[in-house]
């Protein structure tokens, strides 16, 4: 049993190491990018803090002095790293609030959005993909392929707008913005889910098509199992393994989608916070947001790893 525990622990430990690396890289890259952007940081911060109408060189100078922005960059970065080691993300340069506190609320909203979009994308993409895989080469396959190509080709921003116009303005079924109830959650998560489903349906289709043509399913039929039993007991799990693995890769797409969808729908999540922090040159907030996003991706990947371990016995086991 000890071997089995190691089988689970090993990928988790490697993910943990990855998390540390992500933290370091994201922090440093975020810092470097923020300082590479054109525009004066103190002016941008002051504009964000006091509004662009009232900002002037005096406010910027005060800001620079208050936040120590004229200290050497290397020193500022080292300070940030030192704090991260102590699990302190610092304070937002705009609001002065601790970054962790700013992100706590936003993270919850993003988790809600992602938590809704991921199952929704599975609910849309997997059945379509499975249907396409089972009837490969026939009209459901072609229809699902066209739909997937269309959804992939349309940028999330345009897709969101189209859904907004159709479902909110024309049909009045759903509110186009806000974040007060389940109704407001539907449009952004649907936008996000459709983009993800476009990919997952293709993966599910390929996977199901491969399994449908595999000797495993053929043997299950030759054994005398009914089609239903053969697919249920031998088809689904084998088809799910590559789908799950790709799902892990898709999480990157989820991050990208979240940035766009949150901005469009005014969803107060972490992606929205990142976009704003970048505009404001709020370096600690950018670093903190990117860090949390990076860790989130690593965490979800670890969850995917675990799920793969559960359904795929070949993972981490020695062949005889």
């Amino acid at each position, binding site marked *: 049993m000890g071997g089995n525990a190691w089988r689970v622990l090993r990928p988790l430990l490697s993910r943990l190491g990855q998390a540390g690396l992500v933290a370091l890289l994201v922090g440093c890259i975020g810092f470097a990018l923020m300082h590479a952007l054109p525009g*004066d940081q103190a002016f941008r911060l002051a504009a964000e803090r006091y509004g662009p109408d009232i*900002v*002037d060189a005096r*406010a910027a100078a005060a800001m620079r002095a208050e936040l120590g922005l004229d200290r050497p960059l290397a020193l500022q970065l080292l300070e940030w790293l030192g704090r991260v080691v102590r699990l302190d993300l610092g304070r937002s340069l705009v609001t002065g609030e601790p970054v962790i506190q700013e992100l706590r609320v936003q993270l919850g909203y993003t988790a809600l959005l992602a*938590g809704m979009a991921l199952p929704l994308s599975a609910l849309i993409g997997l059945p379509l993909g499975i249907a396409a895989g089972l009837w490969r080469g026939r009209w459901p396959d072609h229809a699902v392929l066209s739909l997937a190509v269309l959804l992939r080709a349309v940028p999330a921003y345009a897709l969101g707008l189209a859904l907004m116009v159709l479902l*909110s303005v024309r049909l*009045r079924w759903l509110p186009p*913005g*806000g*974040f007060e109830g389940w109704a407001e959650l539907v449009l952004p998560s649907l936008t996000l889910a459709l983009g993800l489903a476009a990919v997952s349906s293709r993966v599910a289709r390929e996977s199901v098509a491969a399994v449908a043509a595999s000797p495993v399913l053929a043997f299950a039929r030759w054994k005398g199992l009914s089609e239903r039993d053969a697919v249920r007991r031998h088809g689904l799990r084998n088809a799910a393994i590559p789908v799950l693995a790709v799902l892990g890769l898709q999480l990157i797409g989820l991050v990208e989608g979240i940035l766009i969808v949150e901005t469009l729908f005014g969803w107060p999540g972490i992606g929205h916070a990142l976009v704003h922090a970048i505009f404001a040159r709020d370096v600690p907030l950018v670093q903190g947001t990117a860090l949390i996003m990076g860790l989130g991706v690593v965490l979800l990947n670890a969850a995917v790893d675990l799920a793969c371990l559960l359904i795929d016995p070949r993972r981490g086991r020695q062949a005889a």
Partner: protein
Amino acid sequence: MRRRRLPALAAACLAPALRPVAAQAATGTGAGAVDERVLRIVAPIEIGGLDPARSGFIFTRMGVVETLLAADAEGRPVPALAERWSVDAAGLEWRFTLRPGLRFHDGSAVTPGAAVASLRRALADATALARAPVATLDVAGRDVVIRLARPFSILPAVLANYGSGILAPASYDAAGHVQAVIGTGPYRVLSITAPMRLEVERFDLWWGPRPEISRAIYLVAGQGEARAAMAESGQADLVFGLHPATMARLRRNPALEVRAVAIPRSRILKLNLASPFFDSLAERQALDLAIDRQGIATALLRNPSLAATQLLPPMTGDWHLADLPPAERDLPRARALLASAGWTPGPDGILRDRQGRRFRVVLTTYSTWPELPAIATALQAQFREIGVDVDVSIGNTSDIPRLHRDVTLELGLMSRNYALVPDPLGTILTDFAPQGSDWGAMHWTDPQLAAALARLEGATAPEERRALTQRASAILHEQRPVIPIAWSELAVAIGRRVGHVAIDPFETSYRLQDMRWREP
């Protein structure tokens, strides 16, 4: 309840934001039939924080925070927390008498001491008040006493600015950070989900008449299309910040009223008067004559009446010069003026001076206001016709102040708000101060303007003020240290449910307390 709330997870993450509300709930609203209707306001500007110096305008607009004095629709000071005020003959000592029985939202009494404490914080931050010549702040009985170092006639306007809002002492934590917005206004904070949402409810201990709207939500939608969709779907009662292009569409929607209110904001061209291109009045006049304001206002802003014939729009009263002839585009005169300043067209059609230097300048602008880059490219084409070659550089709001400091700015296209305090003098004083200003003149001084403004700071007699104001505007118009392009309007989509909506051109308040539901 109208809609189901997000349970469990959302509640858990909202908990930190809700905590101050729980503390405030103790003093809750009165009994009686509860009106379930919630007024929803959608706007593009995010809630940047709780401090009045920062996102204070949202809290004053939503009727949460009040100032000692307010402004009426013409920008004149009116009583708010202070029921009356007076100034001594020298114009140095101002007394503001608080209304009796005022309460903060947490139930505590509003004392002159608390007001002075809030004003002291404003003085220490980057607020309008910090630019006033305040010497001391004191309490005398029910009065707040402000002593000035020199006469400053627009102090009442400065006090009406959101940065001078009065918060309860309990609003601040030990370090002096604002941890909850406990104001005095007709509405108190129910919940804040920074930076996107503020929910308020009626405060029953407010000094004024009981408002009809009992609850309201301020919701941020950054994307113009999303805001328009929220108006069209009936999800919002008031939507601010409509793009010109969507206004026409919304106007056709029978369920909406679209109202555009002129506001004291202008799109202007800032010029570096120390540069060889703009150092003579003839050059500035030539540029002015080359601009097709009517075309820009019609095509880009969809409202020809926004073409700015002078710096300040008609709604600014005395600051607007009534008898100016309309600004017509006149290219031959512009060319003649440039020729008189020594500029002659080169073989490529671009002007050159006697040293052979090409008339080539960089126009810096930013995209915070989506119409600015479009106007910049229109100007580029129009200036090309008189042989001026313009490169457009689009950045962010910090570029113009930064280039001003670097002294490398040549042309800057910007949108300037002249109602930071409800009297334009507040902004004019800084923008056209002799040393120049980030958002105003650059390398330009005019002794007559300086004298007029200095006298305006102290003058109190209305006739004298009117004459000085007109004089100052006339100088700005003649000398053109900045070139006005177009005025602005505040466009609002108003839903069918709500009536008695008054749009404040100075944007100090949404006047929620005056609104009514159309159906009782």
